């Protein structure tokens, strides 16, 4: 039996190239992993995590369940391409086995089996496989058609904007678009010349056979297979450098993630898996408020990852992000966009002058004594009502409180971190940690969601429970320590990014509001809530731009026609207050006003 | 027969008052010291904050005065005025039923601030000189070359007890901003520094223009008053000031130093007021009854004020006030003569 024909050369070359390229990438990335990460892999390799990963690969890499859930049409497109192609390969493999038994057949023998069947004198066609393979081809072709359609009219596919691509993507994309139509043509021609009874290729073949004379068919036959093979080869060569590398990156990523590897504030080799796992589907573009409100079209996560991957990331693109987490919330691959963004900013190392932080030694402006520590946060000094309300509540419940920063404190360090000044941020972290330890608190309540997230993610505060004041208030009410009056007033609640998506605190503030009045939700809320625009993560947009973002977000809050707008972040508070004439209050104020006597 | 009102001064205030009186059926007579109407605003280039050519405001005024056949005495100085008329230097008396004093102001003589070298150094000029240069279409250094670095000094002869000018001249700040922008547009490569004590942007659109000057035109504002200027060997001006916002002295050499000269009270005010039995404000301007309902009235019935004779005013304020003066005069005439 022969399984070689000259037209297969492009395919073979492409396949070998792809294999070598992908293997090289994997090996390099794994080899360069820091010791901690490698230890994690070794530790978790034989665990349930691995099984879970396999299931997740099927669900996400093949079926694209997440995209399905978000946008069925888009999900179908991705599924038909990925799963359809996968089945074509698997079923094709089984097909050759059924025809030829377990015999060593080279790769191209499987892929171009239809070509080699008449060459090797196989005349009998098994209808089941003929029909199945045609059905799968049709599935994939539907996906390709949808992809074409999406390029032309993204809106119809439920996406306001589609991704703008780089050159390699365009090559790969064009090749991909031609692979399956080419296969359809090649297999139909084969059917026309040598017979075949698949509902797609067979019917089309029969139709062509009647239409064209045999000489023409034979002349077209080889070029058609050449074209199919070339499209495949070209796609494979372009693939490792294009977004399609995501196919071979997402799978190891799923495993690594199940083995508990995570990106950190410093760049590391693991980031490669996350960065190249981006398929540039562009789902992250639409939720971005910089795009929607300000018309900024070059900074969204898809472009950020693309620029970072090709080493063309500008500081402006890296910095121009609110880090509101709306894109991360919808990313089908679950890439840690915020952390990657932060560690992209931290590429400059900053060796501090030895005396720079000397002022931190022996600095302690705290006051009061108690096991509960209250850290208002820098911003809260600009919204003193929050602090006053918290003090009233503490007093009402008779809590002994240690005030960390009543007289001004040291920043939690997150703003520095968000700007990539990790080294400096660590000094703040160390200072505050030491302060908390020295005063032996067991609970730390903060009024600033930025601080909250920082304490939870960047501090090691074992033995100290960190709570946002909304959580603390919820607990006081639930435990019956604080009794509040149920009033008539209605409140529309704004989820601060760092509290909601950042710290997964959605229910507590809502329960607190419902305990004192009526809760009203704006159009976008919870995981979908809009950012106020004043995010500390963005140092690029100007004041007027911040205001524009805040105005649209505030409008949704106003539309609820609630008596007051409530938020739980001093920064959001300021942003909303300047965009509206409505009453804006912090959740602590709402509670303090409604303490039952 | 129509009542006759003599208006002393044919500047913007005088002309506007005359036109308003005329429209009320009163016969105005303008006595102008100069040989033509227009006052200080004549020869001004553009007006803040809208960059309206000054001629577009002043020319129609003068033309209307002519069209309305308002009687004008030119080249005649009033040496004495009273509610029943004025006496000219020639001795001639023009009888009237009321008198409007619209004598305006005197530009502060920059020579008096000798430390800035006006008149000594070729490239030190006043804001008025600059307007005239802009009007003539060519702003250059004394040697005909283009300035690369210009300093504009605010408050020359304003808020300065050392030259007995305690008051704020009100219009210089915005003029400084306006001229800085004009200079920047003329010389885009030039660096322009405004040295100020306070920036007083009281009018509509002024603050916006100030910000535009800073942000859009990159004009440097240094809070600190130039203490002294000296000429260098190549005819540039070396200036010293304190950059009070950094708390450090600052020195630099500029090609051109523009002094924003303030508004002083006319020297003759004292004598005129004495003869008319009026009082002056401590800054030498005529004192009004108050700043509210009596803002255009003198202490004597029948003598009224219009424009910058009572205090530094912008052209816009002057024109608005002139209408007010006319209505006050009208009311007075009705009450006093038609009983």
């Amino acid at each position, binding site marked *: 039996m022969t399984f070689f024909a000259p037209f297969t050369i492009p395919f073979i070359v492409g396949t070998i190239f792809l294999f070598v390229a992908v293997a090289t990438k994997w090996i390099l990335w794994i080899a360069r992993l820091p010791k901690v990460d490698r230890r994690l892999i070794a530790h978790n390799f034989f665990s349930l995590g691995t099984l879970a990963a396999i299931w997740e690969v099927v669900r996400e890499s093949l079926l694209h369940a997440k995209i399905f859930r978000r946008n069925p049409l888009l999900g179908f497109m991705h599924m038909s391409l990925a799963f359809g192609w996968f089945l074509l390969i698997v079923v094709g493999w089984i097909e050759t086995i059924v025809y030829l038994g377990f015999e060593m057949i080279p790769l191209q023998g499987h892929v171009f089996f239809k070509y080699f069947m008449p060459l090797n004198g196989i005349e009998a066609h098994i209808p089941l496989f003929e029909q199945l393979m045609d059905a799968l081809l049709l599935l994939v072709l539907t996906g390709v058609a949808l992809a074409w359609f999406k390029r032309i009219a993204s809106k119809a596919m439920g996406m306001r904007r589609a991704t703008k691509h780089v050159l390699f993507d365009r090559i790969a994309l064009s090749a991909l678009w031609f692979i399956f139509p080419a296969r359809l043509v090649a297999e139909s021609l084969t059917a026309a010349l040598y017979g075949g009874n698949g509902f797609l290729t067979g019917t089309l073949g029969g139709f062509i056979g009647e239409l064209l004379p045999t000489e023409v068919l034979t002349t077209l036959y080889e070029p058609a297979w050449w074209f199919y093979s070339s499209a495949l080869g070209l796609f494979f060569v372009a693939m490792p450098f294009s977004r399609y590398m995501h196919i071979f990156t997402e799978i190891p990523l799923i495993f690594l993630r199940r083995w508990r590897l995570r990106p950190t504030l410093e760049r590391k080799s693991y980031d490669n898996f996350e960065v190249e796992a981006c398929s540039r589907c562009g789902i992250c573009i639409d939720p971005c408020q910089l795009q929607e409100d300000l018309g900024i079209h070059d900074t969204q996560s898809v472009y950020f990852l693309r620029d970072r991957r090709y080493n063309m990331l500008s500081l402006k693109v890296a910095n121009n992000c609110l880090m509101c987490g709306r894109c991360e919330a919808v990313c089908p691959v679950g890439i840690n966009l915020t952390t990657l963004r932060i560690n992209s900013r931290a590429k400059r190392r900053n060796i501090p002058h030895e005396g720079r932080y000397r002022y931190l030694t022996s600095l302690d402006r705290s006051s009061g004594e108690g096991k509960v520590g209250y850290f208002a946060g820098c911003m809260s000094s600009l919204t003193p009502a929050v602090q006053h309300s918290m003090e009233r509540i503490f007093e009402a419940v008779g809590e002994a409180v240690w005030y960390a920063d009543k007289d*001004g404190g*040291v*920043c939690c360090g997150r703003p520095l971190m968000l*700007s990539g000044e990790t080294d400096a941020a660590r000094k703040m972290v160390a200072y505050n940690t030491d302060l908390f330890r020295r005063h032996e608190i067991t609970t730390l309540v903060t009024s600033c969601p930025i601080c909250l997230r920082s304490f939870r993610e960047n501090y090691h505060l074992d033995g100290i429970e960190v709570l946002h004041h909304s959580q603390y208030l919820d607990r006081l009410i639930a435990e019956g320590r604080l009794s509040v009056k149920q009033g008539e007033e209605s409140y529309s609640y704004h989820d601060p990014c760092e509290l909601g998506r950042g710290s997964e605190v959605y229910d507590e503030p809502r329960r607190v509001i419902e305990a004192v009045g009526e809760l009203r939700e704006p159009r976008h809320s919870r995981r979908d809530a809009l950012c106020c625009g004043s995010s500390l993560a963005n140092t690029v947009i100007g004041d007027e731009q911040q205001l524009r973002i805040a105005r649209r977000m505030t409008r949704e809050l106003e539309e609820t026609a609630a008596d007051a707008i409530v938020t739980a972040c001093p920064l959001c508070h300021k942003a909303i207050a300047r965009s509206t004439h409505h009453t804006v209050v912090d959740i602590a104020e709402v509670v303090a006003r409604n303490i039952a006597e | 027969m129509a009542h006759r009102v003599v208006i002393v001064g044919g500047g913007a205030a005088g002309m506007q008052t005359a036109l308003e009186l005329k429209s009320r059926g009163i016969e105005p007579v303008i006595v102008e010291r100069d040989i033509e109407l227009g006052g200080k605003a004549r020869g001004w280039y553009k007006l803040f904050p809208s960059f309206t050519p000054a001629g577009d405001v002043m020319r129609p005024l003068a033309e209307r005065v002519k069209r309305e056949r308002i009687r004008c005495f030119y080249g005649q100085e009033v040496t004495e005025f009273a509610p029943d008329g004025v006496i000219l230097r020639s001795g001639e008396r023009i009888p009237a039923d009321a008198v409007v004093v619209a004598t305006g102001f005197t530009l502060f003589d920059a020579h008096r601030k000798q430390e800035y070298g006006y008149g000594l150094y070729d490239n030190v000029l006043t804001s008025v000189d600059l307007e005239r240069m802009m009007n003539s279409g060519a702003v250059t250094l004394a040697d005909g070359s283009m300035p690369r670095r210009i300093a504009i000094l605010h408050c020359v002869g304003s808020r300065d007890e050392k030259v007995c000018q305690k008051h704020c001249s009100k219009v210089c700040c915005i003029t400084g901003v306006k001229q800085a922008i004009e200079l920047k547009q003329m010389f885009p490569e030039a660096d322009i520094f405004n040295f100020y004590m306070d920036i007083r942007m009281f009018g509509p659109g002024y603050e916006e223009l100030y910000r535009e000057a800073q*942000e859009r035109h990159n*004009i440097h504002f240094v809070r600190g008053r130039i203490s002294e200027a000296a000429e260098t060997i190549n005819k540039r001006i070396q200036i010293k000031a304190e950059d009070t*916002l950094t708390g*450090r002295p600052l*020195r630099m050499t500029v090609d051109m130093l523009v002094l924003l000269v303030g508004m002083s009270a006319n020297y003759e005010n004292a004598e005129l007021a004495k003869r008319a039995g009026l009082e002056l404000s401590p800054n030498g301007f005529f004192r009004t009854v108050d700043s509210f309902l009596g803002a255009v009235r003198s202490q004597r019935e029948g003598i009224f004020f219009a424009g910058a004779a009572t205090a530094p005013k912008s052209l816009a304020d002057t024109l608005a006030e002139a209408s007010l003066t006319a209505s006050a005069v009208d009311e007075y005439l009705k009450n006093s003569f038609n009983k």
Partner: protein
Amino acid sequence: MSTLNFGYGINRPRAIDLDNNDLRKSNAIIAEMPELQACIGCGSCTASCTAGAITNFNFRKLHTAVRRGEYRGVYEELSKCMLCGKCRLVCPRGINTRGLVMLIKRKLGDF
């Protein structure tokens, strides 16, 4: 050169010398963020400053010095800023102060 030890030297003038200061960096900073020029020196930033409450850090003074071409020690001093962003919330001229801190540090930095 001198072989004598006088026990003192010629003091550097304290004055900001705009004739000899190298304004290229300052111009580059202003070109990138022209809003810096809109500062009216109200001092709100410094008054609200978290770092200013515990050190003598003064952002207003520092950026003014930078605009005059006085860069000495600015980078190190600016590193006292914790980027907390209070200044941005209080600036009456809406200046992106945090962006400016980053920009000035970048331009003057010793990275």
